[in-house]
């Protein structure tokens, strides 16, 4: 139901970067995430809010800290709705080809 929000959230390189940072290590505080980006605290907060509204980031309290977790389910829903239906066989074939070409290169 919220595909639009997810696509919009993913359409920004900073937000994709934040997701990659959380993929590497989950459950981080704003301060930790901020320290890895050349951006004001306010800017990072704004991006995290967009990610949270799209469901791509879920926050949980741990004591006094607010931890940010990557939630892969919205991406999975897009995969199941769009990729599987239209392109999985072709995408898989292309991915195999890419791997093969890169390995023999």
């Amino acid at each position: 139901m919220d595909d639009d929000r997810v696509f919009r959230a993913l359409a920004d390189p900073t937000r994709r970067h934040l997701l990659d940072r959380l993929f590497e290590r989950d459950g981080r505080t704003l301060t930790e995430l901020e320290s890895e980006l050349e951006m004001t605290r306010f800017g990072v907060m704004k991006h995290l809010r967009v990610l949270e509204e799209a469901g791509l980031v879920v926050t949980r309290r741990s004591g006094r800290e607010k931890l940010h977790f990557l939630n892969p389910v919205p991406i999975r829903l897009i995969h199941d709705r769009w990729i599987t239906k239209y392109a999985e066989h072709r995408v898989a074939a292309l991915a195999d080809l890419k791997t093969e070409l890169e390995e023999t290169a």
Partner: protein
Amino acid sequence: MTTMTAQTTQVYSVFVRATPEQLWDAITKPEFTTRYFHGSVIDSTYEPGAPYTGWSADRSQQFVEGEVIEADAPRKLVTTWRATWGDDLAAEPSSRVSWEIESMDGGVTRLTVVHDELEASPKTAESVASPAGWSYLLSAMKTLVETGEPLAD
């Protein structure tokens, strides 16, 4: 590509057009679990201390071995969780799975699965984070509950 070590606390969340009671049934009743949980039957009385086990549909193979820690229908279910679908996984210690169900506005319910205490169970952590893991299960459950039909392969 770098190989990542799977997270020791994993959070999965999905919005479903359904009531909390419908989601509780989808989590606890075999007639639902067989249709999205890789065909498995979940067995438990959902009382604290009771066993919580998952089986293949013909019960020839056990997939999950656990115990109910907390059950508050239709809001929260917490169990221990030892994956037994592989010998290497079964050798790892129990972790913990929490299902949290939260009613939102507009007939939507939020389901959040937190799988944690995975520090000593890296293979289990990797398996449940894989494409056949929690993200698939929640996507498949959403489709089943909203449409009455399982997710197509």
